[in-house]
Structure formats: structure tokens, C-alpha cells
């Protein structure tokens, strides 16, 4: 591969102190991710997937080891610098949506841009509307978070991750709570983003989803157990079309 390295981990460890015991959530992870890769991360519950994603998303710092994002060491950064990085370079889709309560879809999506002075109020709104249209929610702009279905909320969360035009999109179980059809719809969306050249890291429990990505990393007990390139990427759009039509009754 001759593409630029976006993410580089060097022997990253993350320990948590729980009472007198130390939990080793990550026990020395090293890998490189290049621009434009669509990586799925799998592993049993508790294997360290979310912990790893938090590291990649600059929400947390390693206990030891180095993390370079676009060649810059994240470990040595100040809190406010990491905040800026999250704001400009990273789009994060959380395991459980995390939308603001009593707030409309468009306001939720605008949120990251609120912390970016380069956007005027008008530009912010336009970008939020464009992101919502991209996830197929162009007609739900003013719906409040509690007036939407799980799949819709998931898509608002994805739109929010896209709105700042990030270099890396990180998704933690973005299809975890969705039915098969909606899951495939979300996958189609991610494949589209992949096709546009975005770097995507997608944590999932579902082994089938790995078939739609370009690379699959499997974790176990905080270590990498498997890291394989997928040369035969399936099309989610085709799989969606092949699903039995929804029964309308």
C-alpha cells in the first residue's frame, strides 16, 4: 500500500485501576491504518474494543505506548489540543447514540460545529442539513431525539459524526441495536463513505459485517489475535436488495 498512514499504534497499553486490582484492557496493541481503509474490529465482550476505539478517538490516552494521528503523538498533547483534534479530525458514533435530549435532529448534528469558530450559524445549519440528507433523514430535521426510532437516532448519530468532514470515522456498534434491514442500510451508508475515500473503523460483534469491510482486526484479552485484509468485499447495497421485501400490514 502506498497510501498515507493515518493511524499508527505502537505497543499501546491501557490499564484501569479498579480498587486494588489492575485491569489490563489493552496489552500492547500495534498496527497502522492507511487513508481510505474500512477496518472492522471484532472480539468477544470485554476484549477491549471500546477501550481501543476511545484511544483512537483521542478520548483517552494510553498508559504506555504511542499513538500517532496523522503523524502527531496524541499522548503528549494537552487536553484542549485533544479536544480540538476530536472536533476537527474525528467523527465518533457511540455504542448507544448519545444524542442530546429534548433537542432536534438538526441541532444534534450541529453540535460539533458549535465548537468550531470557522463555521457561521448559517454554514453550520447548512452542513447539518446536508449530513442529515446524506443519512436519509432530510425529512426529519426538526424531530426531537425522543420522537425518533432507534434506527433514526442511530442515523442522526452518524450524521453528527460526518458533519465536521472528519479524516477518520469511528463507530462503536453502530448497527448493534438495529434490525437486519436497518443494519444493512447503515452499512450501505458506510460503504458509500468508504467509496468516497474516508477512513472508517467499525467495531462490531457481527462476523457477517466483516465481509463488507476492507480489513478485519480481531481482539482477544486486549491483544490482536487476527488482522486480515479482505480482498473480496461484498456489496451491502446488493445484500439489502436481496433481503425479503418488508411486509406492510
Amino acid at each position, binding site marked *: 500500500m502506498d497510501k498515507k498512514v493515518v493511524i499508527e499504534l505502537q505497543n499501546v497499553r491501557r490499564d484501569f485501576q479498579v480498587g486494588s486490582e489492575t485491569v489490563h484492557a489493552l496489552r500492547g496493541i500495534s498496527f497502522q491504518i492507511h487513508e481510505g481503509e474500512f477496518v472492522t474490529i471484532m472480539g468477544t465482550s470485554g476484549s477491549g474494543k471500546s477501550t481501543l476505539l476511545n484511544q483512537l478517538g483521542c*478520548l483517552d490516552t494510553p498508559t504506555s505506548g504511542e499513538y500517532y494521528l496523522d503523524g502527531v503523538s496524541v499522548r503528549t498533547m494537552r487536553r*484542549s489540543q485533544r479536544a480540538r483534534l476530536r*472536533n476537527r479530525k474525528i467523527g465518533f458514533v457511540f455504542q448507544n447514540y*448519545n444524542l442530546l435530549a429534548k433537542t432536534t435532529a438538526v441541532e444534534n448534528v450541529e453540535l460539533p460545529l458549535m465548537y468550531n469558530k470557522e463555521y457561521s450559524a448559517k454554514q453550520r445549519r447548512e452542513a447539518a442539513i446536508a449530513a442529515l440528507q446524506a443519512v436519509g433523514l432530510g425529512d426529519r430535521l426538526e424531530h426531537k431525539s425522543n420522537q425518533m426510532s432507534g434506527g433514526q437516532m442511530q442515523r442522526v448519530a452518524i450524521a*453528527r459524526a460526518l458533519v465536521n468532514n472528519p479524516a477518520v470515522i469511528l463507530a462503536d456498534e453502530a448497527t448493534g441495536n438495529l434490525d437486519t434491514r436497518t443494519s444493512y442500510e447503515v452499512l450501505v451508508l458506510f460503504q458509500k463513505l468508504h467509496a468516497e475515500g474516508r477512513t472508517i473503523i467499525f467495531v462490531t460483534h457481527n462476523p457477517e459485517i466483516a465481509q463488507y469491510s476492507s480489513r478485519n482486526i480481531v481482539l482477544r484479552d486486549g491483544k490482536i489475535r487476527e488482522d486480515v485484509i479482505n480482498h473480496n468485499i461484498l456489496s451491502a447495497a446488493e445484500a439489502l436488495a436481496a433481503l425479503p421485501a418488508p411486509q406492510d400490514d
Partner: protein
Amino acid sequence: MSLINLFKIAIKAILNNKARSFLSMLGIIIGVGAVIVMMAIGQGSKQSIREEIQKNGTNMLTIRPGADMRGGVRLDPSAMQTLKQADYEAILNEAKFVNKVSPEVSTSGQAVFGSNNTTSTCYGESTDYLSIRLWQVEEGLFFTEEDVKKSAKVCVVGQTIVKELFPNGQDPVGKTIRFKNIPLRIIGVFKGKGYNNWGMDQDNVIVAPYTTVMKRLAAQTHFNSILCSAVTEELSDQAIEDLTAILRRTHKLKDSDVDNFTIRSQQEWMETMSSTMDTITIILVVAAAFSLLVAGIGIMNIMLVSVTERTKEIGLRMSVGARGLDISNQFLIEAILISLTGGLLGVLFGALLTWGCNTLIGYPAIIPMWSVLVSFAVCVAIGIGFGYFPAQKAARLDPIEAIRYE
């Protein structure tokens, strides 16, 4: 994040919790209201004292026995008997900048007419008294030089005396009342003056020639004070200097002796009274300000609860790029907004209390403009001061732990 957005978020947060926000404002509302009404009462009192003094003639000078007591040193009673007839005469003959002089002697006692009686004070004065005090006789006449010379048993009475002793509407002029058992014939009635600021009924007076009061009623040879009128208000200071020189000579004071009398102009009275009022106002305002302190603690309490409740929201904001500063600003502005809104309502509440003071109780109260501005400034300070700790607490949260908080 821009200030406008921070304000929008704060307004939304406050509106999302209307009842709680209002309760946390309540302390500020009451505190600011109390401060405003206290200041208004202070200001109103000062103003009406000034008017009162002006009504009595701004060029009046008061000579009292004893050294200047503003320092707080009390002298023995004999030192209070230094003003004598000789002083009065010396002033009459020599003083250059005063044109009216009246020695004053007063004594309190029962005034009786028929079966009616009332407690009053009888003032002994000279014929200049009317023009020094700018008083007017409504009915009958004031006494004359002749009456003073003969220590005539005549008097001029105020409206209260008329009301108390002649309840059936008889004409008091020409009637003889008894004061401390001495018969005094009423020759005139003063125009009503009402109550002064200290709550003293200015119509409950009997004025007689000073010679009459000294010899027949009080049996004393010294004056309680001597009142003079400076030729003009501007000449007050020169008049004081001149009078001081005269009295030092008649009192045979050596150069090293301090004055054993005190001369005050109305201006000085005004200053003394206003500074006394200022002191009282400060004490009241400080008391009210303590309630603001308590209110601030209330706001801090609410903000801490709010930070805890919104931990997840804080974590989310941080995860999409809010810096600690953005978060602390958000909560700081919310605290300021609560306190400032409270302040605004408090000013309205204070205005209402002041209005009540004026119309219901009839006490003069005027809200000074600066007290409103100071109240707003204090509210902003309270918001910052008591919002700071909760805001810091919010800003220091760890994004991951915060977003996981349930």
C-alpha cells in the same frame, strides 16, 4: 464556542427547569429587593432631611454650649451652662454678619385649659424667632419687644395645642392656658408645620418671650442655645468666625483654651444628618447583602446538582470537541444568567416595595439609579463567584467517564 451560543444553551437549560431555576433565583430576588428598598429609604430620608432643613432657612446658625461634641467627649453639666445674657447682648451689639438673634430656653410640662391637658414644650425666644425659623403666625399676633422686656405672660401656640386644649373649635386667641401652673395668655396661633423627619410633631409647641420662660417657668439664667440668621447663606462661614471671636472674648477664653461653645450652620447640620443617614443605610444594606451571600450559595448548590445531572451531556459535548473552557463558560454563563435574571426581578420587587413605602406607609423613599446598577454588577459577581466552582467541576470531568455516567 461563541457567546451567543453559550447564552442560547444557558437560556434553554434554564427554561428546561423553570421551577428549579426560579427557586434558585428567589434568594437573589429577595436579597436585591431588600437592598434596593433599603437604599431607597436611605436616599429618601436624606432628601427629606435636606428639604426640612431648607424649610427652616438655610442661613440659620445655632450656637450651643459646650465644646464640639462630634468627637464624642462629654463634659460635665456646668460646661453646658455657658451661654448667658451677656453673650446675647454682645452678639446683638457687635456681630457683623448676623441680622437676627434669638436666645432659646426650653422646658417641658403640662399645658392645661379647663378640663383638657396635654404634654408639651415651651420655648422661650426673642421677637426675631419667627423670621429666623421662617415660621408664620396664622391667627393673632406674635409677641413684641415690650412683652419681652416685661416678661409678659403671653404665648403663641402650635396647631396640636389648639386641637388638644380646644377640641370644640373655640377660638384660642385671648384664652389663658396654664403651663406648669403659670397662666399664659394665647395671643397667636402658628401655621401648621406637620411632623419633621425624626417623627417630632412641630405643631406641639408653645412659644413665649425668653424672659418669661427663664424667670417664670424654667428658673434658669443660662440659655439652651442661641439662634442667629446670617445675612446671607454665603456669609455663614464668616458669621461663624465673627461669632466665635465675640464669644471667646465674652467667655474670657485664653488662646490655649478650646471653645466652650459650638456654632453650627445649617449646611453642617445637613452634612451631619446625611452622614448619620449614610451610616444607618450602610448597616441596613450590609444586612441585606448577607441574604445575597446566602442566595449565592443557593445558586452554587443548584449548579452543582445541574452539573451532576448533566454529566452525560458534558461528556458528549467534550467528545465532539468541547474544551474544558467551553464547558466551564457554559455553566458560568448559566449561573450568571440565573443570578442576573434574579437581580432584574429583584429590582422590580424592590421598586414595588419602595412604591409601597411611599404610598402605603407614606415614608419617603427614592431609588437611586446607581443602586440599580450596583445591584446588577453584584449579581454578575455572584454568578461568577458562586458559579465558578461548579463550572470548574464540570470542566474537569473526564470525557469517557462522563459519557458513561448514568
